[in-house]
């Protein structure tokens, strides 16, 4: 049975569990710091880096402002090029469309490439229920699938695994799903890659149907773009007879000239490479070359809800480079699973609530999964102001009456503070200061790993009064 994030605990609880896992913390720390270092070097290499970020943000805002027109243009161009466009309002609709398309081909073994969106909508479980076995072909996604695990990063879904854990998963699981791992497999990266190559090649060559995502859809020509590092994308996109691409509506860019901006940013910011090894583009179908049937499933699943949020809509600019999580000090300690979504880290902390709303406890806990340190703002290639969105979402949670006790406490403190006489009395008396100070009240959490500050004998205002009295 495919694992999912359904029923996941709220962030504080899930994070506490993850933080306690020393091996996981070391794996995540090592991986994020490596990518972070490479990204910093390659971003600094471009003298026009900041202008590229400005352009990317502006292009995405332009798309979001006129999304309907761009999407209709995509539909027109894809259809004219021999493809079929489907519209899915939500996960259930998208899963039904894809499942029906696969069932119609008669195939029961299919391959998947580069699609976080299919994780978001739970496509694998839907296909499984219809008797269809979908195998992941991105190396990291395949590691997650073979290990019956969950993704923890948007670019490197198996980032939480080190190579010896991967070796164990390959040795144990590959044989159950196809070509087994070679005898005596070690954790040497080249050996692991070769084992994956052999196991996956069998899948590419056998599959008649592929499901993909897309990094971008160029509206002016109806062209889809997949950016990847392993070549599995190129294989899936060209070898299958039927290609079904499941794409979020926010992935649109107006023109090829706009695409150029993102292709300069994406690999540098995502993996610290000047260019991604494989950039595949396709437009509809081409006689005698590549898939004979091409379906584009355009998925909303909460995106128009996010679009309706005036502050939060900037999250839809995201191009899934993962730099925000690579640089996030919270993510570095918790890894991605704590966020309970295929989108973890700072982008997950804002995007999940924007897509799903704030009605359940897990989603409502995400805007608080940040110290507001702002490191993510500085690396985002599309200039998402994460801290602005986090603060706005917190206000939405507070206004939604989710934390009545907290509201009452802060309200009482605020009322005291706004009345000079009460506040003076509070500071002098110190007894009323309690609610202000985590140190003086038994607020769980503070005292676990921190000493309390000494309470001074005299407040500043008392000193001032005494001192000024002497001066006068």
């Amino acid at each position: 049975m495919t694992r999912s994030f359904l029923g996941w605990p709220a962030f504080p609880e899930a994070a506490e569990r993850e933080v306690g896992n020393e091996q996981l913390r070391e794996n995540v720390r090592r991986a994020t710091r490596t990518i972070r270092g490479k990204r910093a070097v390659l971003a600094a290499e471009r003298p026009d880096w900041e202008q590229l970020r400005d352009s990317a943000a502006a292009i995405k805002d332009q798309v979001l402002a006129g999304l309907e027109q761009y999407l209709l243009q995509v539909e027109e161009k894809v259809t004219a090029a021999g493809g079929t466009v489907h519209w899915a309002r939500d996960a259930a609709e998208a899963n039904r469309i894809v499942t029906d398309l696969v069932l119609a081909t008669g195939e029961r073994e299919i391959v998947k490439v580069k699609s976080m969106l299919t994780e978001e909508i739970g496509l694998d479980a839907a296909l499984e229920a219809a008797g269809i076995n979908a195998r992941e072909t991105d190396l990291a996604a395949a590691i997650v699938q073979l290990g019956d695990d969950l993704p923890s990063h948007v670019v490197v879904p198996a980032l939480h695994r080190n190579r010896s854990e991967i070796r164990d998963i390959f040795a144990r699981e590959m044989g159950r799903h196809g070509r087994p791992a070679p005898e005596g497999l070690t954790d040497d990266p080249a050996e692991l890659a070769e084992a994956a190559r052999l196991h996956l090649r069998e899948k590419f060559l056998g599959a008649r149907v592929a499901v993909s995502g897309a990094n971008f859809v160029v509206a002016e020509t109806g062209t889809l773009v997949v950016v990847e590092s392993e070549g599995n994308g190129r294989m899936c996109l060209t070898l299958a007879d039927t290609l079904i691409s499941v794409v979020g509506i926010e992935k649109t860019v107006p023109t090829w000239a706009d695409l150029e901006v993102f292709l300069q940013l994406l690999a540098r910011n995502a993996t610290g490479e000047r260019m991604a090894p494989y950039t595949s583009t396709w437009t509809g179908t081409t006689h005698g070359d590549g898939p004979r049937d091409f379906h584009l499933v355009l998925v909303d699943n909460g995106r128009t809800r996010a679009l309706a949020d005036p502050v939060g809509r900037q999250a839809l600019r995201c191009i899934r480079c993962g730099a925000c999580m690579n640089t996030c000090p919270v993510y570095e300690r918790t890894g991605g699973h704590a966020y309970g979504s295929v989108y973890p880290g700072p982008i997950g902390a804002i995007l999940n609530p924007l897509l799903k709303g704030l009605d359940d406890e897990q989603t409502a806990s995400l805007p608080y999964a940040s110290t507001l340190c702002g490191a993510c703002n500085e690396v985002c290639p599309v200039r998402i102001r994460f801290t602005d969105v986090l603060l706005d979402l917190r206000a939405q949670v507070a206004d939604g009456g989710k934390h009545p006790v907290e509201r009452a406490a802060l309200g009482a403190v605020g009322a005291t503070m706004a009345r000079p006489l009460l506040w003076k009395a509070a500071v002098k008396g110190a007894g009323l200061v309690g609610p202000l100070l985590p140190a003086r009240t038994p607020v769980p959490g503070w005292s676990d790993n921190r000493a309390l500050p000494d309470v001074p004998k005299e407040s500043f205002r008392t000193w001032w009064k005494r001192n000024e009295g002497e001066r006068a």
Partner: protein
Amino acid sequence: MPPNPPRPRTALFVTCLNDTLFPGTGRATVTLLRRLGVEVDFPAAQSCCGQMHFNTGYRKETARLARHFVDTFADYEEIVVPSASCAGMPAEAYPLAAEAAGDPGLARAVAELAPRVVELTQYLTDRLGVEQVGAHFPHRVTYHPTCHSLRATGLGERPHRLLRAVAGIDYVELPAAQECCGFGGTFAVKNPAVSGAMNGDKARHVLETGAHVLAAVDNSCLMNIGGRLTKDGHPVRTLHLAEILARTEQDGPLPGVPVVEAAR
């Protein structure tokens, strides 16, 4: 500027945390500013900037404190704040709080007042134009640039320049200085495990420097890191930068803190 201002033109907004738990920072700020010729007033009606409320999502409650802040400080030409995060509140948060409260009058008052609210090190370097403030501090010191001072208030190298100009100081760089200490206001109590893990790494880096004093421009973060150091039994002192800059040769070394003989 009126010909005979009825009271000093410069106000100290000490912040509620400093008033109650870190009064030494307020005293040091007053001492330092007076030494530099600034007559500073402390309007006693002041309380809290509302940062805790705002960052937790309570914008209407923040607006109430914003109104109070504006009423308290409206008559001053400059308001000096020994806290980078609190100093940023009028410009960054009050407009949003006013909007949430549907109070355009407050928004106008905030727009008028906010440019006059200045963080202490910015006040020293930009308004007074000094880096050498006549301080003497013969101790090994490292400095944690708090997230707000670094990324929101944009203090840049100002605090470092002020520290390096202190006579007798042995200033050492903090490894991974720009990483958050894990405080994050209510984050520290809402997500104690993660906060504690971040704080543990920060404390370890402080110890790696061999410094006897850790300085910063936000006592909230120092309370977090210092709490960890104390809990683990390390005698590193945490001090707001103002408390270093306020000390002169006449004050002598800080009692109980090892003295460095030859500064680097």
